């Protein structure tokens, strides 16, 4: 009896430690973001106050209003930046995932000569730092006349995303046992049907997670975008963020507001897709 109760006590203590650890970790993760949201709603005087004002005295949406009220009123063309970001990210994600699915399937299901080297070669194209790649691309895009266009950035982002989309999707196809597709083929499916009706649904969550990664990479990319775009017609949100910094001053409040505008779509998208993300990975159907 005594042993039982001490074991119970130990378990309860461990549970409490676990909760505290979890709370601290989540606090560290969330605090910077929450601080940005809070700062975007406070007047600049309060942000600059010394000694600091911890509890907001007044909440206002002025930063958002002035942000959307156009150039010259302390605003920047957020709507245009937002549109550019959305068009570029969505288009390049779709293309990259399509190419990645074909490539990932090739690596997961076929044997061919030099497989590892080809795979490594693909990855190595991704290792090229954005800033290093921007030097020749800048030069080429100026010559081809596609600098400062949606097309130019989409092209660059597809190339940026293809290698690790292939990487991830390959890994997820690998987790789907070959036997399932073979069984479907024995039951009369063509290889094409077996792919779409058996392997694709099972690898679906992995493909979704690859799409999230690709989308976030495009949505957040700065090194290439800052050199390959110049005007409102193609600048994306990360580049637009720089509009808030003058030579020596930074409009913290406006910047925080734009940061919130940038994060909301990413947050929404991730939340929608992430329920598919892990569910299919826990291989319930696959084991049977």
């Amino acid at each position: 009896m005594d042993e039982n109760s001490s074991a119970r006590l130990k378990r309860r203590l461990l549970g409490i430690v676990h909760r505290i650890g979890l709370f601290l970790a989540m606090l560290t993760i969330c605090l910077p973001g929450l601080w940005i949201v809070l700062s975007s709603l406070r007047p600049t005087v309060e942000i600059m106050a010394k000694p600091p004002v911890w509890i907001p005295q007044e909440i206002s949406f002025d930063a958002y209003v002035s942000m959307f009220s156009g150039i010259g009123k302390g605003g920047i063309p957020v709507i245009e930046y937002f549109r550019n970001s959305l068009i570029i990210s969505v288009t390049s994600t779709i293309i990259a995932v399509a190419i990645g699915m074909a490539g990932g399937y090739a690596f997961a299901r076929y044997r061919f000569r030099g497989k590892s080297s080809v795979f490594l070669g693909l990855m190595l194209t991704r290792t090229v730092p954005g800033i290093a790649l921007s030097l020749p691309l800048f030069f080429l895009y100026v010559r081809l006349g596609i600098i400062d266009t949606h097309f130019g950035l989409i092209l660059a982002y597809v190339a940026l995303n293809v290698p690790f989309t292939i990487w991830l999707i390959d890994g997820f196809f690998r987790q789907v046992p070959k036997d399932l597709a073979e069984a479907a083929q024995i039951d009369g499916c063509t290889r094409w049907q077996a792919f779409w009706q058996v392997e694709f649904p099972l690898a679906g969550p992995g493909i979704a997670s690859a799409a999230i990664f690709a989308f976030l990479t495009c949505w957040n990319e700065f090194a290439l975008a800052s050199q390959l775009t110049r005007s409102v017609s193609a600048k994306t949100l990360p580049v637009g963020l720089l509009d808030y910094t003058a030579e020596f001053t930074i409009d913290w409040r406006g910047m925080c507001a734009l940061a919130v505008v940038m994060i909301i779509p990413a947050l929404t998208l991730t939340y929608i897709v992430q329920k598919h993300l892990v569910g299919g990975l826990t291989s319930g159907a696959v084991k049977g």
Partner: protein
Amino acid sequence: MKGFKPSAPFLLLLPAFIVLAAVVVVPLLLSLYSSFTPFRLTKPETFFVFVGLRNYLSILANTDFWWAFGRTVLLLTIALNLEMLLGLGLAMLVEKATRGQRILRTLMMFPMMFSPILVGFQFKFMFNDNIGLVNNALQSLGITQDAIPWLIEGHLAFIAISIAEIWSSTAIFAILILAGLLAMPKEPIEAARVDGCTPWQTFRYVTWPFVMPFAYIAMTIRSLDVARAYDIVKIMTDGGPAGRTELLWTLVARTAYSDGRMGMANAMAYFSILLSIAFTVYFFNKLAAARTQIGAEW
């Protein structure tokens, strides 16, 4: 059946090859060529002057370059190791949680949604010596009276940058390791427990070998993308104070776009490319080894 019939994997990989050749390989050949010229943006005719290895030789003799190189390697070593450990810890904490796992997972991915440039701004704001959250908190709690010059003193700036970097990238490790933990069959763990393994032994010999490939996938994805530290540093300190946080990438950008010395910048860029390749090849080999260890087909 006549003529050349390409194999299925070749056809499946062809779109990827075409895009990568057009956007990465060909431009890089161009930049390799221009690294042997004294090319300046302001003088287009210099593109056709060939100077051999002169750019490379002057880089090798440049102490600023070597400092930036060493600092970059140091930052990567510190950041990648801590991110791996913290990501593993975070994934295990979330995996153990019995309630609200979905919301925890979403929160866990939170930093990943932040653009590196946003992370830079955010931490620049928080580490601001005058109005930043960190100093305000330290002063309000009475830990220190002075404003700590986080981004103004060289070593502190390096620490601040590392913190920003780690905050932003731990999520990638956590989410992939968590995916590994969740995909893991429960039977081996139960068997180990029945056989009398301690929790540490269960972790070390059952869980870890299974999760390791996932951790190395995360590691490799990170090593593919190490240069995103450029965005963070660019915003937080822009290489300052007095070049104390200058990384390879900020140096390349400065040489290329501020000084307009494209030839020299391309030569430097090749060093940064080689560095990234070294990191990736290293982790790729680790991944292959980890996969063979758990008997996965490679």
